[in-house]
C-alpha cells in the first residue's frame, strides 16, 4: 500500500483535482484521535478488570493522546508522504506540549478549589491561630501580616524603583546609568531565599541575632520587587514618544515639569500595571519571609517588633507542623493557598484591566 498504487485510480476519475490528491481527509486526524483514545481506554479497562482497581480516566486519555502522535505520523506517511507526515507529527507534538502544560494547571485549580473550600469560611477570615491546637482557628493574623509586609515593601520599592527608572530613561548617561542597568539585572536574579538571608543578617547585626520582624520581611521583599518595578517602569517610560517631550520643551516647560506632567501621566497606566504585577509577584514569596519575618500564631500590628505571620508562610507552617487532627491543619493550609491564589489573580486581573482601559490613545 503506497501512494503510487493509489494515484492512477484518482487520475482516472474524470474531475479529479490534482491539488487535493494524496491528502488525508479533513476528518482523519479526529478519527485517529478517537480511535487511539478508544484503544487506550480498552487496555486500561482490561487492566482495571484484571486488577480490580478503578478505571483510570486520566491515564486512558493521556496514553490515548500519546498513541495518537505515532499513529497520525504513520497514516500521513502512507497517504501523504514524508514531508507532510513530519508536518503533522510536529503539529501533534506542539499541540501536545500545550495540553501537557494544561495538566498541572487544571489539576492545581481543581485541587486548590475543592480542598480549599472546606475551610474557606467566616472563621477563617476572622480568627487567628492564637490558642488553637486542633480544629477551628483562621488566618486573620497571616492576612494582616501579608498586607502589612507587602504594603511596607511597596512603600519602599515604588519610589526607589520609579525614580530609578526615571533616572535611567530621562537623565541617565554614561557609566552610572550603565552600572545601574547592570546591577538591576543582577538584582533580578537574586534567589528569594538569599534576599531573606540578607534582610535577616542586616537586622541581626543591628538588633541582635534571632531578630525576626515584619520590617525585615518587607526589606527582603523590596529587594525582589525593586528590580521588577524598575524594569517595567523603564519600559513604559521609553514607550512615551519623544515628540511629546519635545512638544513640552518647545513650550518652555522645564525638564522636571515635563516629566511630572507629561511623561508620567502618559505612561501612568503601564506603570501602575507593572507595579501591581510586581506586588503580585512578591505577595506569594514564602522563603524570605520564613527567614526574615518568622512565623507566629498571633495577630501583630507592629512591623518593627516581634515576628509577623504571612499567608504563604502560614500555608507552609500549617503543612509542616501538623498537629492533631492533621486534616484540620491541611484544610487550613489549602484554604490559605486558595486565598493567596485569589489575591494574586485579582491583582493580575486588575493590572490587566488598568492597562487596557486607562492607557492613553496616541491617535495616529
Amino acid at each position, binding site marked *: 500500500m503506497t501512494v503510487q498504487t493509489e494515484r492512477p485510480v484518482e487520475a482516472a476519475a474524470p474531475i479529479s483535482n490534482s491539488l487535493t490528491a494524496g491528502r488525508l481527509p479533513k476528518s482523519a486526524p479526529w478519527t485517529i484521535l478517537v480511535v487511539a483514545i478508544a484503544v487506550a481506554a480498552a487496555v486500561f479497562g482490561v487492566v482495571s478488570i484484571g486488577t480490580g482497581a478503578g478505571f483510570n480516566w486520566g491515564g486512558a486519555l493521556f496514553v490515548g493522546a500519546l498513541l495518537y502522535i505515532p499513529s497520525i505520523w504513520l497514516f500521513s506517511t502512507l497517504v501523504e508522504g514524508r514531508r507532510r507526515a513530519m508536518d503533522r507529527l510536529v503539529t501533534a507534538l506542539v499541540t501536545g506540549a500545550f495540553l501537557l502544560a494544561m495538566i498541572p494547571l487544571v489539576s492545581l485549580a481543581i485541587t486548590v478549589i475543592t480542598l480549599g473550600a472546606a475551610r474557606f469560611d467566616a472563621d477563617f477570615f476572622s480568627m487567628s491561630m492564637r490558642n488553637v491546637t486542633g480544629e477551628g482557628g483562621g488566618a486573620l493574623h497571616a492576612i494582616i501580616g501579608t498586607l502589612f509586609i507587602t504594603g511596607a515593601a511597596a512603600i519602599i520599592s515604588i519610589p526607589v524603583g520609579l525614580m530609578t527608572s526615571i533616572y535611567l530613561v530621562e537623565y541617565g*548617561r554614561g557609566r552610572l546609568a550603565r552600572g545601574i542597568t547592570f546591577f538591576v539585572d543582577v538584582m533580578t536574579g537574586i534567589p528569594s531565599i538569599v534576599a531573606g538571608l540578607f534582610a535577616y543578617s542586616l537586622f541581626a547585626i543591628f538588633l541582635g541575632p534571632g531578630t525576626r520582624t515584619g520590617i525585615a520581611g518587607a526589606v527582603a521583599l523590596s529587594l525582589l520587587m525593586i528590580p521588577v518595578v524598575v524594569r517595567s517602569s523603564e519600559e513604559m517610560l521609553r514607550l512615551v*514618544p519623544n*515628540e*511629546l*517631550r*519635545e*512638544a*513640552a*520643551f*518647545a*513650550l*518652555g*516647560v*522645564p525638564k522636571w*515639569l*515635563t516629566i511630572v*506632567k*507629561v511623561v508620567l*501621566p*502618559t505612561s501612568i497606566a503601564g506603570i501602575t500595571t507593572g507595579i501591581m504585577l510586581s506586588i503580585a509577584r512578591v505577595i506569594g514569596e514564602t522563603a524570605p519571609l520564613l527567614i526574615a519575618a518568622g512565623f507566629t500564631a498571633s495577630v501583630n500590628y507592629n512591623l518593627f517588633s516581634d515576628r509577623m505571620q504571612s499567608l504563604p508562610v502560614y500555608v507552609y507552617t500549617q503543612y509542616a507542623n501538623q498537629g492533631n487532627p492533621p486534616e484540620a491543619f491541611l484544610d487550613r493550609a489549602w484554604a490559605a493557598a486558595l486565598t493567596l491564589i485569589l489575591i494574586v489573580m485579582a491583582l493580575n486581573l486588575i493590572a490587566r484591566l488598568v492597562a487596557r482601559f486607562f492607557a*492613553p*490613545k*496616541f*491617535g*495616529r
Partner: protein
Amino acid sequence: MSKRIEVRDLNVYYSKFLAVEGVNLAIEPRSVTAFIGPSGCGKSTFLRTLNRMHEVIPGARVEGEVLIDGNNLYDPDVDPVLVRRQVGMVFQRPNPFPTMSIKENVLAGVKLNNKRISKSDADELVERSLRGANLWNEVKDRLDRPGSGLSGGQQQRLCIARAIAVSPEVILMDEPCSALDPISTLAIEDLIEELKLKYTIVIVTHNMQQASRVSDRTAFFNIAGTGKPGNLIEYDDTTTIFSNPSVQATEDYVSGRFG
C-alpha cells in the same frame, strides 16, 4: 510681538560630527522664511538651534551666535527654557498631549509651568489661540474631548494654537505639513499667511511649491556628500530663488534636477 533673528558663523555638531557648517543669515520680523534642501542637509538641525531644541539630543552642541534682537541665545547665562517660551515650535508630526483635552492642550504651556490662570482668562486665551489657529469653529463644541480624537490636520492646527498660546515672538515649523493630506496642508498654509502678520515664522519644507507659495525669503541648504556637513548655499527673496538663482546648485534643485 515679533523679532529679528541673526545667525553668525554657526556650526552645529552631534558629538564630533559636524552637521551644519558656517551659517550666516538674518531673518526679518513679520516675515515667512523657508528652508529648503535635500534630505539630510541639516535644515531641520539648523532650525532646532534657533530655540535650542537640538540640545535635547545627547551630544548636540553649537559654535557661533544666534542673536534674537541682539541677544545671543548661546550666552552662558541664558536659560534654554526661557528661550523656548519666546521661540515656539511646531513639529513634523502633530503631537498633542494624549492625556489632555483640546482645551488643556491649548493651555498646556501655561498649565505645565504651574502658572495660575483664572477661568475667564483661560477661556479667553483658549478661544483667542484657537481662532488664531483657524480651529475655533471646528472644535468649540468639544473642547473637553481628547486632542488625539481630531484629524491630522486639526491636530496640527491644535499644536499651532498651543504654540501661540504662550505668545512667542517667533514660530519655528519643522515640515509641519509633511504628515498631512493636501486639504489640511492648504489650511495650514492659509494659517501661515495670517500668522505672519504677528509673528516671525521660519518653516522647513521639502515641498518647493509650498516654499514658493508661503514664504517671503528662502534659504537653500545643500550637502556635498554623505558624512560632509550641510551648508547654506543661497539665501534670497523667494521669487529670486525660484526664478533667477545665482548659484547653479540652487537652480538644479528648484528646477527638480536633483534632490
